[in-house]
């Protein structure tokens, strides 16, 4: 899991035309998200503990297991001595981490690496996720994960994520940054009300806060990358929120995570990357296998990718326990 994260960090810096070794001390920080830390590593050490004894548990377990391992190892490897941290907010974590990175840049840090990689598919990881509920038990891959479909019965987990180099705009201009994908324009986060209180879920408010923060009105949004939990109650509440903000079938909605599975904290940074690429290439990646249920009144992009210009995108993610997060991203100024 951390191996993937280290490679992604290398590639991201390369893509951004940044040599972290050349940057002034404390100029670059890192904040990532995580949902599970090093599960596969931990499983092996647990097996060693119970089969051979404590003398056979690796010393590296001391940090391989924990949520901050990617922030830690990436910062050590690249000499990132700016502020660092990790956020644990289930599937919403990736957006929260990028929002935190943006806060750091706004308070004076020229550059932050952010995003997340989660990889927990091992026996132990499966057991933990099955016990938590929400996983599909479908055998046919074409029917495994069907958000906004009346056949929705849970999601399929995957492994991976994305890392992004965030930079103060002026700093990027001054160094003549070779590649700018876009801007983190707005952010909103809410908690759901206590179950049984009769109050509405907080996802609509998170989207409205993000739009407000970005100074953007609903009509300006070209695509929504949905959380797409794939569980009927959650699909309904998300579809309702999107309908209230954008109007019935008021904006193209997509869930390319139907192609990768839900990546825990890695899902949101990946959707952010996909949003930026959809702006670059003028194409919205589709939601696969899904036959959208009419009751949701969503303009879901299914079947083929949809070729339209994209300048403004909204990304929505929710986390277990009632976390809602939404982010508005915008194409670079023309």
């Amino acid at each position, binding site marked *: 899991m951390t191996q993937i994260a280290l490679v992604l960090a290398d590639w991201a810096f390369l893509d951004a035309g940044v040599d972290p070794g050349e940057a002034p001390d404390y100029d670059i920080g890192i904040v990532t998200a995580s949902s599970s830390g090093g599960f596969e590593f931990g499983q092996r050490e647990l097996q060693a503990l119970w089969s051979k004894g404590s*003398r*056979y548990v*690796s*010393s*590296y377990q*001391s*940090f391989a297991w924990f949520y901050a391992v990617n922030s830690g190892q990436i910062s050590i490897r690249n000499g990132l001595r700016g502020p660092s941290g990790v956020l644990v907010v289930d599937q919403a974590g990736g957006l929260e981490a990028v929002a935190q990175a943006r806060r750091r840049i706004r308070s004076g840090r020229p550059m932050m690496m952010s995003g997340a990689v989660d990889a927990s598919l091992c026996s132990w990881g499966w057991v933990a996720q099955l016990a938590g509920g929400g996983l599909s038990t479908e055998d046919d891959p074409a029917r495994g994960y069907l958000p906004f479909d009346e056949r929705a019965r849970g999601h399929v987990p995957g492994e991976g994520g994305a890392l992004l180099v965030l930079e103060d705009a002026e700093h990027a201009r001054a160094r003549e940054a070779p590649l700018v994908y876009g801007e983190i324009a707005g952010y909103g986060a809410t908690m759901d009300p206590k179950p049984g209180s009769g109050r509405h879920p907080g996802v609509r408010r998170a989207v409205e806060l993000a739009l407000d923060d970005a100074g953007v009105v609903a009509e300006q949004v070209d695509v929504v990358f949905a959380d797409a939990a794939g569980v009927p109650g959650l699909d309904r509440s998300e579809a309702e929120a999107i309908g209230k903000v954008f109007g019935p079938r008021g904006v193209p909605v997509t869930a390319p995570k139907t192609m990768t599975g839900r990546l825990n904290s890695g899902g949101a940074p990946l959707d952010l990357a996909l949003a930026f690429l959809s702006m670059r290439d003028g194409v919205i990646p589709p939601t696969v296998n899904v036959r959208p249920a009419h009751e949701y009144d969503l303009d879901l992009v299914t079947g083929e990718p949809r070729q339209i210009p994209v300048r403004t995108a909204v990304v929505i993610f929710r986390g277990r326990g009632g976390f809602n997060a939404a982010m508005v991203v915008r194409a670079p100024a023309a």
Partner: protein
Amino acid sequence: MSANEFTLDDLKRILREGAGFEDSDVTAAEVGDTSFKDLGYESIALLEISLRIEREYDVALDDAYLVDSRTPNELVDTVNEVLRAGHNS
């Protein structure tokens, strides 16, 4: 398994198994006298190495030995001292 002698090659093997052993600018001849720090082995790597030596050679290595052994050759000498002390008692 107990052995009579612990060699630099034994240590290199354990370094490789326990903490990875990257090709570096240091030649094979120089490794023995290059500090662990310069070889890229920090405290957790040394903890792991110590754990492996302990269970493979059935010895107890005091934490002080790790702190005092600056280079691979010094650690080899220390381990051999402990092994010899064990056989003499």
